[in-house]
């Protein structure tokens, strides 16, 4: 049977970094004699279901959110700490040379899930809002932002605003009814998900990398022949390269946003420093296993 690769975004090589990874991976396998098939977003189930299928060996590869892997082992939540990493190369270095991806896998592999790679969905996240533009930290004060999880709630509280948890499928409704005033996401998200009708402002806050993960079933991975496993590893390396190259080519995205009628706001250095300062207490609040925060700090040489 072909290797099933579950996508997490529309199959769009222009806008979706995770699709670039998944597609490159699939094509490499096919060119090297392994059958692979891409499954549309959510066709095999939503995040929790796909994670569960991967852990049982029923699904070979799933493009997933990092939070999903985080339910198995919290170490990966560190990648989403706002303003912790100077930039993406620094995060990449921590994951690779710094040994953090290996450390993450020590937690997830016993539960049947291998984190093959950290994948960037798009450029670093900024603040999308519906009615009120955000140019300063103080502007956050009277906003109620959509939060993905407890970590984001804490982030918004640290910034002096409020968070409300809304699942992704409810986000358009919540934004249009004013249940939430905006969300944190990579700049491309309103374009990819068609939110340009109600997202009006984007603040390029570059708070954290938009990390997603390529999960692989450990049962399946261990069941491969040595030669097959080598092909899979090479495919992942190829996909990794393609994803980073794609990210570096995402230079026009802010112009695309403007063309879609969304105001793009650059943060001044001074304001960015305020955001960074306000975020410091968050690192201790992220629920991670004992020693993980120290490991992250060490991996970036802090």
């Amino acid at each position, binding site marked *: 049977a072909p290797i099933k690769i579950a996508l997490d975004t529309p199959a769009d090589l222009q806008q979706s970094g995770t699709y670039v990874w998944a597609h490159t991976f699939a094509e490499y396998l096919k060119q090297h004699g392994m059958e692979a098939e891409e499954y549309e977003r959510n066709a095999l189930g939503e995040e929790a279901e796909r994670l569960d299928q991967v852990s*049982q060996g029923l699904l070979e590869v799933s493009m997933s959110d990092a939070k999903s892997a985080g339910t198995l082992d919290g170490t990966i939540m560190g990648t989403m700490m706002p303003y912790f990493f100077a930039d993406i190369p620094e995060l990449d270095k921590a994951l690779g040379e710094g040994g953090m991806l290996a450390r993450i896998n020590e937690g997830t592999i016993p539960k049947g899930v291998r984190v093959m790679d950290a994948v960037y969905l798009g450029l670093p996240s900024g603040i999308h809002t519906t009615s009120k533009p955000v140019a300063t930290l103080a502007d956050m004060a009277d906003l109620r932002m959509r939060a993905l999880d407890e970590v984001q709630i804490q982030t918004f509280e640290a910034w002096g605003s409020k*968070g409300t*948890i809304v699942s992704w499928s409810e986000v358009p409704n919540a934004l249009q009814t004013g249940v939430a005033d905006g969300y944190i996401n990579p700049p491309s998200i309103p374009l990819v998900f068609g939110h340009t009708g109600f997202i009006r402002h984007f603040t390029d806050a570059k708070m954290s990398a938009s990390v997603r993960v390529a999960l692989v079933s450990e049962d399946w991975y261990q069941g491969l022949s040595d030669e097959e496993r080598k092909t899979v590893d090479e495919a992942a390396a190829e996909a990794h390269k393609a994803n980073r190259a794609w990210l570096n080519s995402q230079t026009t995205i802010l112009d695309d946003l403007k063309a879609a009628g969304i105001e793009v706001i650059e943060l001044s250095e001074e304001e960015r420093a305020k955001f960074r300062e306000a975020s410091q207490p968050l690192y201790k609040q992220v629920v991670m296993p004992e020693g993980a925060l120290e490991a992250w700090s060490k991996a970036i040489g802090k």
Partner: protein
Amino acid sequence: MRAIANLMDALSALLNRVALAVAVAAVAVMLGAAGWQVIARYLLSQPPAWTEELARFSMVWGGLMGASCAFRTKVDPTLFPEALVMTGNRGRLLLVVRSLGVLAFVLPTLWFCVFGPGANPARGYIARLAGRQAETMDLPMMVFGIAIPIAFAVILVHVLAELARGFAPAAGGESRR
């Protein structure tokens, strides 16, 4: 045989009462959580993060327990309700076919709740959920997922009780429904 049928029926009826009580409580919790979300939004100007998840998971408990009650009291929609009141050998044959249909769905679901790949209970659905946290509440997902095997096991008891009733020699009049 008849004694077993009576025993099974008593067990099935007892489980049904318990399931209904749990279902009612779950619906009440669901309503409370959804209502509190509105109140909290305006009183505390911020709804607590856990209301949505609590409401959803209470709905799972209420719905699944309710499903077992719906099975026992035969309120589930069917295309040929007249088949349910047939008696004699034909009635028994239909009862067996119905039971097979239910078992075909219920048994694999129960099996995979308990056992994972390689019939390993440590990797079954419930064991997997035990290692996962709910998103906003400080509880393992198992607290909610366990509703599935419980509800399906209750349905299994209802099926067995029905079979026992159908095949017990009807000494003293009609078997109870």
